[in-house]
């Protein structure tokens, strides 16, 4: 703590802060541009000037940049001082000389930091009469719009993109009045986190190109706290609506999870909600085709199928909320409920849950991943599977070097000085995966091998850490010495971390990672163990329990079931097509609840349109084990309703008593918390629908929301009453509490004078720290104090390439591998084309070249794919783009002959 004086009043502020951070934390309105809480200070824009005085006798003082000056004990400053104020106004005036003043047509308008700062400094009239410099803009791909004339040269974009996110294709060009921020040549920005430029750029240079297609100003959006559904990490998002359609996704700060940043899949994948593939009407099979059927008729039909039917089973979903899964489980009964994961998926997720539950290693939050100081990634391409982890790891490699800059007494927020001192030095990060990953450039060493060999490396590391862990006999010398190098790096770290997951479809890889973590924990180290999860609620689905898909298939095959209710799940992605066909054909009644018309929906007799994430309330459990609530941004149109509501209607149709006592989300949550002890704590994920602040519900729309009274005037000139929301403490209205809702119920960030996302400073208990009132979400899995369990002992045999067969291994792509986001046009545009990758040696052996057609034979089905050469793939392995080409079938790795065509 330090005591500082601001305009003759003293305040206690945190140690190790700049004056700017301290002032913002104290609630002062001090303008800035180039400083960003996640990027630190560089003193480039000169916007944050204040007057600093030597002591109480100093009456002249001198101007300093508050972002570059430490808030040291006894510091005396003035924000109000006339010199400082006019200096700040002058800086904005200078920056605005060349600005096009085109706010009315700028997508940033109304949530622009430059607008806010201009107003804050009091610069109102442009006096310059010279012509403004103009630039040619670039097409930066389908995600991001570029309008360079609005640039104020704060350099945030390149600092974020290059230094924070590791991108290399965005830069500053030219000099003086001509400085240009963009690419050397037009083209899609290559970094997977480029979308954050939309929030990093304080003006309208980089804006969301997908939003542009259906643009709405921030003040006209109805918003709700949501959670990303495009991987298992559960980044917090803000979903925003106007006129009944989802307009955009914005980052929603959570100090423990995503912090300030999302990945591009999470930001731009939302358009599937608006897509052509949506089911909007209740559909029933008539004359062999699915045709719209009035909802009431569908309920009647359910009333004929369900009551007294002893042969109903339910297949849940790792992408559906806990509430929806639980409602289905309640409808059919726990023993007739199946989790909806593939057999192998379910096996691996259970294994990971078991490991996390047993301990001793604890699963870290994303913000803890970021401060790990030695990391092993075993078997995952995190950039493409759980992308936000990759961005966190790019910061983790700075941890050890920053201990050096600490010794030099450079404050960590003094970003440029820290980076100058560190140069290219990176802390330990080891990546072992079947193929090259997009994070390799940040790695100390990489290892490319088949899944079994990855596991063997892991087991060898564990053995090097603790001789009680099983050894790996006959390990190649190179792998042995790498294992020792990794063990040594992890051992000497303060906060070592092991990351693994199910991507290589290998239990051995997961067990090996667990052994490494156990070895470190036994030596008394505070080790983290993070697993990626295949879908947004995989861990939640697993905690809920339920058999795997084969068991469901068997129930129908053996005649124990003939009616199947499938919740938000495309079974064709989870099991071989032939098996799914057999299952769905054998069942007498197939009822699907989903938002997209998947191949599974196409096979059903009744399809009930479900609300997608932005149209639903519920809880998801992230790979960290954090239960997080998401809320409806709007009530969906047509027949669409939340899955759990459909299920309540089914219960009613089936004559079930629960239907009477369940009418709101809170009812379902209460029953769920009571019924499943592992999930009991989810009630704490957010306040209930009864919550009120100053007697009011929380407004989903900002104060300036316009057109409220006329939006529906074409239907009725009287303004309709806003719809009720029985399920949450949020109101579908601008009327209600606006100021500081509890973090899990914050629909948008806004503060007087701070219309942009930078208003976040006003919502944090400390800058860059937790939100006031605590970061949203509740952790469900904590390892016990005293570790139990022992090392896994089944070390696999070395991988042996087969003479004429190849092991088919899925390769993941941030754009294309995930089921929902690949339906979003902008994401689909960036997805890879189908391919089958082998290394050069194998290609030569097969006598194929890149682009040649090759045939894969799998379970009797032939797939033709163009060859791609990935030089780093191990011999004997063929990679295919997961999700883009469906060779997954059982989720187990398969061998196949490859034949040249």
């Amino acid at each position, binding site marked *: 703590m330090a005591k500082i004086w601001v305009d003759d009043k003293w305040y206690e502020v945190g140690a190790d802060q700049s004056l700017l951070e301290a002032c913002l934390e104290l609630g002062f309105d001090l303008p800035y541009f180039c400083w960003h809480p996640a990027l630190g200070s560089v003193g480039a824009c000169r916007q944050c000037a204040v007057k600093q005085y030597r002591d109480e006798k100093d009456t002249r003082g001198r101007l300093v940049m508050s972002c570059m000056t430490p808030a040291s004990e006894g510091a005396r400053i003035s924000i109000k001082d006339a010199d400082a104020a006019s200096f700040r106004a002058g800086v904005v005036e200078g920056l605005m000389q060349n600005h096009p003043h085109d706010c009315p047509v700028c997508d940033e308008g109304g949530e622009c930091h430059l607008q806010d700062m201009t107003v804050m400094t009091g610069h109102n009239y442009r006096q310059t009469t010279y012509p403004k410099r103009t630039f040619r803009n670039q097409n930066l791909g389908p995600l991001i719009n570029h309008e360079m004339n609005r640039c104020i040269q704060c350099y945030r974009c390149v600092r974020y993109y290059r230094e924070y996110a590791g991108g*290399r*294709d*965005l*830069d*500053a*060009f*030219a*000099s003086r009045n001509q400085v240009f921020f963009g690419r*050397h040549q037009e083209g899609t920005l290559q970094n997977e986190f480029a979308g954050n430029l939309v929030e990093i750029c304080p003006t309208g240079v980089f804006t969301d190109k997908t939003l542009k297609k259906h643009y709405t100003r921030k003040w006209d959006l109805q918003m709700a706290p949501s959670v990303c559904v495009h991987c298992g990490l559960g980044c917090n998002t803000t979903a925003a609506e106007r006129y009944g359609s989802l307009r955009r996704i914005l980052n929603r700060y959570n100090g423990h999870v995503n912090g300030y940043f999302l990945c591009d899949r999470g930001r731009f994948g939302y358009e599937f909600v608006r897509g052509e593939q949506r089911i909007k009407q209740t559909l029933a099979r008539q004359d062999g085709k699915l045709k719209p059927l009035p909802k009431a008729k569908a309920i009647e039909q359910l009333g004929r199928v369900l009551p007294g039917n002893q042969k109903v089973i339910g297949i849940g979903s790792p992408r559906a909320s806990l509430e929806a899964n639980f409602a289905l489980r309640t409808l059919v009964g726990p023993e007739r409920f199946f989790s909806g994961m593939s057999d192998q998926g379910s096996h691996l997720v259970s294994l990971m849950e078991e490991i996390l539950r047993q301990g001793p290693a604890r699963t870290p939050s994303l913000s803890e991943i970021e401060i790990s100081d030695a990391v092993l990634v075993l078997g995952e391409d995190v950039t493409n599977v759980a992308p936000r982890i990759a961005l966190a790891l790019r910061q983790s490699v700075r941890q050890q070097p920053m201990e050096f800059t600490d010794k030099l007494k450079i404050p960590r927020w003094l970003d440029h000085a820290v980076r100058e001192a560190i140069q*290219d030095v990176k802390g330990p990060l080891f990546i072992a995966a079947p193929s090259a990953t997009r994070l390799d450039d940040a790695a100390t060493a990489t290892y490319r091998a088949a899944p079994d060999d990855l596991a063997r490396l892991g087991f060898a590391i564990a053995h090097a850490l603790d001789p009680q862990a099983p050894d790996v006999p006959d390990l190649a010398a190179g792998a042995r010495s790498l294992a020792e190098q990794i063990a040594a790096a992890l051992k000497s770290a303060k906060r070592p971390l092991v990351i693994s997951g199910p991507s290589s479809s290998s239990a051995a890889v997961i067990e090996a990672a667990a052994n490494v973590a156990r070895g470190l924990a036994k030596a008394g180290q505070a080790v983290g163990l993070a697993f990626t999860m295949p879908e947004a609620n995989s861990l939640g689905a697993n905690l809920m329990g339920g058999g795997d898909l084969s068991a469901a298939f068997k129930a129908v095959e053996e005649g124990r079931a003939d009616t199947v209710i499938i919740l938000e799940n495309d079974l064709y992605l989870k099991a071989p097509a032939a098996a799914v066909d057999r299952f769905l054909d054998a069942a007498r009644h197939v009822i699907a609840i989903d938002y997209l018309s998947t191949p599974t929906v196409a096979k059903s007799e009744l399809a009930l349109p479900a609300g997608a994430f932005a149209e639903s309330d519920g809880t998801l459990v992230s790979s960290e084990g954090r239960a997080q609530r998401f809320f409806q941004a709007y009530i969906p149109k047509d027949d669409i309703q939340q899955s759990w509501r459909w299920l309540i209607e089914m219960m009613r149709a089936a004559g079930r008593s629960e239907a009477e006592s369940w009418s709101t989300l809170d009812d379902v949550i209460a029953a769920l918390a009571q019924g499943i002890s592992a999930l009991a704590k989810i009630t704490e994920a957010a306040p209930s629908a009864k919550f009120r602040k100053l007697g009011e519900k929380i407004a989903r729309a900002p104060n300036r929301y316009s057109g409220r009274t006329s939006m529906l005037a074409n239907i009725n000139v009287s303004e309709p009453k806003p719809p009720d929301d029985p399920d949450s403490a949020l109101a579908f209205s601008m009327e209600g509490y606006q100021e500081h809702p509890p973090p899990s119920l914050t629909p948008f960030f806004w503060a007087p004078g701070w219309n942009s996302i930078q208003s976040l400073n006003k919502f944090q208990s400390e800058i860059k720290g937790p939100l006031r009132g605590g970061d949203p979400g509740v952790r469900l899995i904590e390892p016990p104090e005293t570790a139990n369990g022992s090392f896994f002992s089944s070390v696999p045999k070395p991988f042996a390439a087969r003479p004429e067969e190849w092991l088919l291994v899925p390769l993941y792509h941030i754009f294309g591998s995930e089921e929902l986001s690949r339906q979003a046009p902008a994401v689909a545009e960036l997805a890879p084309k189908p391919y089958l990758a082998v290394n050069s040696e194998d290609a030569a052996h097969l006598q194929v070249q890149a682009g040649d057609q090759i045939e894969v034979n799998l379970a009797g089905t032939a797939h033709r794919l163009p060859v791609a050469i990935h030089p780093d793939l191990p011999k004997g392995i063929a990679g295919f783009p997961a999700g883009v080409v469906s060779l997954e079938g059982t989720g187990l790795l398969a061998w196949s002959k490859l034949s040249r065509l």
Partner: protein
Amino acid sequence: MLSPEERHEIEAEIAHYPDKRAVCIDAMKVVQKHRGWVSDEALGDVAEFLGMSVDELDSVATFYNLIFRKPVGRHVIMVCDSVSCWLMGYDRVRDHLTSRLGIQLGETTPDGRFTLLPIVCLGTCDHAPAMMVDNELHRDLDAEKIDSILEQYK
């Protein structure tokens, strides 16, 4: 493709530094010495040679006004427009040059003989107005002198 000569000269520079990216400016000067300017293609080649992205290298290239990213004439005239020269008759020098050559600042004569560029301070204020042609300094300029200087460059 970089010529063997260019590679050789760039490698000689690399030997002086711990990090080869440090020679990026020199490398572009080498290319410019041989080719007169740095094309997109040459930029890509140099970037690859130094382990940089093209964007990174172009960022450096475009910062310096003496790295030419567009073709220039056989001779580059840089006429000083800084304070001393401006006081001492830069306007006249510029007007004479533009009318003699029939081009504006930033342009190249149709026969590819001269490119005319402004420059800030040639460090010879006591002999203003001044200009530089290729690597030679010309001072105390007047119309007559300019005419005879131009004759020296074919």
